[in-house]
């Protein structure tokens, strides 16, 4: 809400500087978006009297002027203008002055004669005839001889105004106007508030002879006030009114339209002016639009209306889009003779809905959406009529058509002062509280230790003691709130077990060189597509956002892999040689499509790595480490993820439940992301891992007896997985096995085609005593037999 301070001063006494006013208003709940100083672009330009004019020796058009600016010495200024005479008052831009057109004037010399400034034309001061008479004359602006010599031109031009843009919070629609803000200022500064006059005289007659008003839907239009004005005398509105309208960012049109806008600025109540002679059937009907109806608004655009939209219709058709914009046909024009004036209350959500649906936002619709006061309609109408009367813009017809079903009663709140203070924790004298509330027009009396507060309808945000507490506190001053340390039992907060577990996992991942990333929860459908998933893959059932910012962010992700691949691609494209990334976030899985209920939000971890030292087994190492932090018992199985390399991927089961998939990304997928190097990714279901109950850890005695180490080198079919061989050894060694370590796998020269050589080092130990040769030989025999059963023969 932009407020001209000069305009505002008509309604409230302001005894502080604009800066102090802003500070005080901020502390009362009115944030200041900006302060603009009008005339800020004119500096050091003063009213000067031309005392003497002499010709310039070296020029036939330049003249040397001695200018009196109210100081001891005259200032010498050389000018080329010819429309000046001795004794004229002129605007003199002195040394180091600025003009609104951006010119910076400094002392200098013109053809060898010192010139300590410049005499200005109206154009150079960016003035028009309406700003100052004579401003459009070619040559120097000759000022009225009543101006004070030496006065700052900003004062002369009335450019000493300050425009403050207050941010009005959604709970204070009553402050979207001059009077609301003026009232608040009067409370904050403890100064007088002067509401404007609403007096006028009618020329008799009876409105009922002119027109009839019917409201068909009081739910959407709780009150409609209509008045008639005849014999309009349309002309320009006075300069003071035009200035106020301009300062608020609107455009002056003519006296009638300007009055409706000016009253809206003053009171916050939108008004609408109809050309009476264009109202068909001399009927005003407030009703819902009918199916198929159209309206052409003031701006010449045609809109299709739907039955949930409220219109002001005449006997035949919609004539105005209620509370939003008038129709083109009933517009007030220079030759309009008679006026029907509307001041109405419309339901804010309906205006909001229509305004959104049609994409029209106006000063009026904005105010209706935030909420207007039902009682203010009448006050605003009277104010408008008083201005019509004052400006002699027409003849006011006797009588009003005021339609409503009921008017609200004042809300009464009864509350003990102590109950207000108990929310604040501050001791405020009761008298002071009563005084503050009363100054805010919340009429308060104290009887038997209880406040009775009567809340006017314009403050319908004030509902109970919490609101009263806020009203009292913001005026009394929030700096009175003294902090108290946390009270109550000494307790230490806790984290959810999931967060504890994920913290542990993250610190593991960091310890092995993984950096954490953060990406958006929504992705493009094509990014899920790029994983080459089967047509019936569940991950294709991503939940769509109804109003996304764009296709790029339009579905809730069902997998974290696309986001990870994008991040990897970004880093690879920026020539970063290697990286290890992880992200913990949620996957969104719908319970039904289209969704009706909250989807499952599954905590998920993604990992992405690339670089010359990374391969399937480094990622497998990372996965094993993660499983260890959760105390999971793991198994690896061959998997068939379409986005992974068919021969380099695995499914990980944690305690027999599928918990992760990892592997090298399929080259076809990489191509879609523009990645030209091998990258590896994993997706881990944290919901599965969070559910694992970790067994408690107990001490195991350290070994007392020596271990025996034996190597087993074998030849077998190259298709037999190493894990199968290891399992045979493990089974054979039984409880004497301490560890098995793979130390060589070889295919190639000296090994028959289709075979491979595999070597393990096996450590055996007993906790009971030193192993005897017999014990060792028995184990050896079992191992060899087991290996032989699966087709692995020891190499001699």
């Amino acid at each position, binding site marked *: 809400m932009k407020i001209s301070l000069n305009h505002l001063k008509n309604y409230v006494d302001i005894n502080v500087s604009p800066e102090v006013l802003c500070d005080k208003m901020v502390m009362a*709940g009115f*944030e200041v978006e900006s302060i603009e100083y009008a005339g800020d672009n004119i500096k050091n330009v003063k009213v000067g009297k031309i005392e003497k004019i002499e010709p310039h020796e070296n020029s036939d058009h330049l003249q040397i002027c001695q200018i009196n600016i109210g100081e001891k010495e005259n200032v010498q200024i050389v000018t080329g203008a010819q429309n000046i005479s001795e004794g004229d008052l002129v605007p003199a831009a002195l040394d180091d002055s600025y003009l609104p057109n951006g010119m910076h004037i400094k002392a200098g010399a013109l053809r060898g004669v010192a010139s300590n400034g410049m005499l200005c034309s109206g154009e150079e001061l960016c003035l028009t005839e309406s700003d100052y008479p004579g401003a459009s004359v070619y040559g120097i602006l000759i000022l009225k001889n009543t101006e004070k010599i030496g006065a700052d031109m900003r004062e002369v031009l009335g450019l000493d105004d300050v425009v403050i843009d207050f941010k009005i*919070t*959604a*709970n204070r*629609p009553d402050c979207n106007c001059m009077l609301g803000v003026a009232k608040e200022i009067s409370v904050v500064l403890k100064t007088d508030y002067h509401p404007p006059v609403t007096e006028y005289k009618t020329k008799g007659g009876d409105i009922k002879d002119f027109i009839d008003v019917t409201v068909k839907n009081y739910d959407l239009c709780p009150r409609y006030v209509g008045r008639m004005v005849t014999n309009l005398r349309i002309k320009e509105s006075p300069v003071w009114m035009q200035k106020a309208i301009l300062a608020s960012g609107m455009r002056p049109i003519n006296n009638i339209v300007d009055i409706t806008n000016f009253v809206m600025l003053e009171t916050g109540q939108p008004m609408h002016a109809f050309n009476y002679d264009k109202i068909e059937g001399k009927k005003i009907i407030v009703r819902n639009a009918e199916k198929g109806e159209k309206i052409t608004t003031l701006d010449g655009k045609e809109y299709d209306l739907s039955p949930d939209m409220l219109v002001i219709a005449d006997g035949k058709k919609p004539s105005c889009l209620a509370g939003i914009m008038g129709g083109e046909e009933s517009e007030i024009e220079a030759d309009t003779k008679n006026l029907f004036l509307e001041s109405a209350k419309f339901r*804010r*959500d309906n205006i*909001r*809905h229509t305004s959104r649906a049609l994409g029209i936002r106006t000063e009026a619709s904005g105010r209706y959406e*935030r909420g207007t006061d039902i009682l203010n309609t009448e006050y605003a109408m009277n104010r408008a009529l008083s201005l019509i009367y004052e400006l002699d813009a027409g003849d006011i017809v006797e009588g009003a058509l005021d339609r409503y079903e009921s008017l609200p009663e004042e809300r009464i709140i009864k509350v003990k002062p102590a109950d207000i203070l*108990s*929310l*604040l*924790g*501050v001791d405020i004298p009761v008298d002071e509280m009563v005084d503050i509330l009363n100054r805010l027009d919340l009429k308060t009396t104290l009887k038997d230790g209880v406040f009775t507060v009567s809340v006017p309808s314009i403050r319908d945000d004030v509902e109970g*003691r*919490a609101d009263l507490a*806020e009203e009292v506190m*913001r005026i009394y001053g*929030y700096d009175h709130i*003294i*902090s*108290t*340390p*946390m009270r*109550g039992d000494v*307790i*230490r*907060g*806790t984290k*959810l077990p999931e967060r504890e577990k994920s913290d542990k996992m993250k610190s593991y*991942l*960091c*310890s092995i*060189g993984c*950096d*954490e*990333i*953060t*990406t*958006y*929860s*929504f992705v493009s459908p094509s990014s899920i597509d790029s994983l080459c998933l089967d047509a019936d893959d569940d991950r294709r059932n991503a939940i*769509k*956002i*109804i*109003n*996304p*910012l764009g296709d790029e962010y339009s579905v*809730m992700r069902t997998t974290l892999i696309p986001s990870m691949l994008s991040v990897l691609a*970004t*880093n690879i494209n*920026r020539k970063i040689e290697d990286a290890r990334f*992880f992200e913990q976030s949620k996957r*969104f899985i719908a319970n039904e499509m289209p*969704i009706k209920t*909250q*989807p499952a*939000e599954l905590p998920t971890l993604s990992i992405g790595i690339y670089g010359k030292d990374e391969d399937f087994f480094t990622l497998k190492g990372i996965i094993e480490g993660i499983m260890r932090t959760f105390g999971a018992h793991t198994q690896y199985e061959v998997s068939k993820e379409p986005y992974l390399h068919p021969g380099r991927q695995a499914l990980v089961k944690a305690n027999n439940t599928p918990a992760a998939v990892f592997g090298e990304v399929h080259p076809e997928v990489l191509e879609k992301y523009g990645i030209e190097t091998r990258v590896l990714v994993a997706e881990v279901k944290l919901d599965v891992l969070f559910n694992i109950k970790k067994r408690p850890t107990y001490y195991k005695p350290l070994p007392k007896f020596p271990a025996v180490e034996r190597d087993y080198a074998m030849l077998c079919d190259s298709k037999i997985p190493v894990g199968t061989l290891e399992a045979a050894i493990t089974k054979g060694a039984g409880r004497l096995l301490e560890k098995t370590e793979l130390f060589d796998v070889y295919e190639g020269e000296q090994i028959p085609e289709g075979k491979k050589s595999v070597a393990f080092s096996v450590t055996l130990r007993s906790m009971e005593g030193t192993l005897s040769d017999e014990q060792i030989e028995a184990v050896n025999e079992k191992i060899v037999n087991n290996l032989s059963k699966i087709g692995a023969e020891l190499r001699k």
Partner: protein
Amino acid sequence: MKEKIEQLKAAAAEALKNASSKEDLEALRIKYLGKKGELTGLLKQLGSVAPEERPKIGQLVNEAKSKIETAINENRDKIARAAKELKLAGEAVDITMPAKEKKVGVLHPLNRVLDDMIDIFKSMGFDVVDGPEVETDHYNFECLNVPADHPARDMQDTFYLADKLLLRTQTSAAQIRTMETRKPPIRVICPGRVFRADEVDATHSPVFHQIEGLVVDKGITMCDLKGVLEQFAREIYGKDTEVRFRPSFFPFTEPSVEVDVTCSECGGKGCRVCKGSGWIEILGAGMVHPNVLRCCGIDPDEYSGFAFGIGLDRLTTTKYKISDIRLLFENDKRFLEQFD
């Protein structure tokens, strides 16, 4: 005899001076002290000395022997030491060569800051809870005192997934879930991801993060709110930080305040960072609105409480002086690894 002993001593001393290796020393030892050595030889000749002189000469020979022995040993240690030193000197490294460090990863800057905050609030007795990101209209708006078509809904452009299903615009939704499941006294924070339909630019992101705080108990006042926020602000911004309340509006709190802290850049004197005001706005807060308490089945006449919402992204960008919020979601490794 005596002279001979003296001569041998002198010769040995001279030879020792020239000995420079273990081998030289061993040769000297054999020459003088060995079984066939010169001093041993002298001892053998003791028979030829007059009987009354024998003990004296014998003693002289033994003295000479032990003297030479000591000298040889000392020299041996010296040479060994010198050899060790020489070896160590040869092993000197260039300490300015790069370290062989095992690379450690880093948490995302948002989570580093979040972890600090969680520690601070946990120490003040707050439990850390969670809430869903896809919320119902009921939890995100209705129960928070924002009925349908209330103008306050304009303050937050919402992403919808279905009728009455949306991406939460504020972690305040978790307040309601907490109050429905816990009985006062309640002291929780709920960190989480929130969404608003803001176009992406240097200071706006459709995805961002908040930390919601909620305290409900008997007799909670605005002074308690200020106490908690002051302690939090001092832990984050330094112990001299002051907190200021400014009246504001949120539908779910009443009274509502914006909370400013003294600018950590200038200490409140006014600078470019705080645009000359000396204050920086860090969060919104207020006393839980009676309608909200009622909606959760808590009697506002018996209990009161406060709530606050901290913008994690803003806190992070200010802390690290990150100029563009988009960097947080771009995940360039060189960016991420600056925050360890």
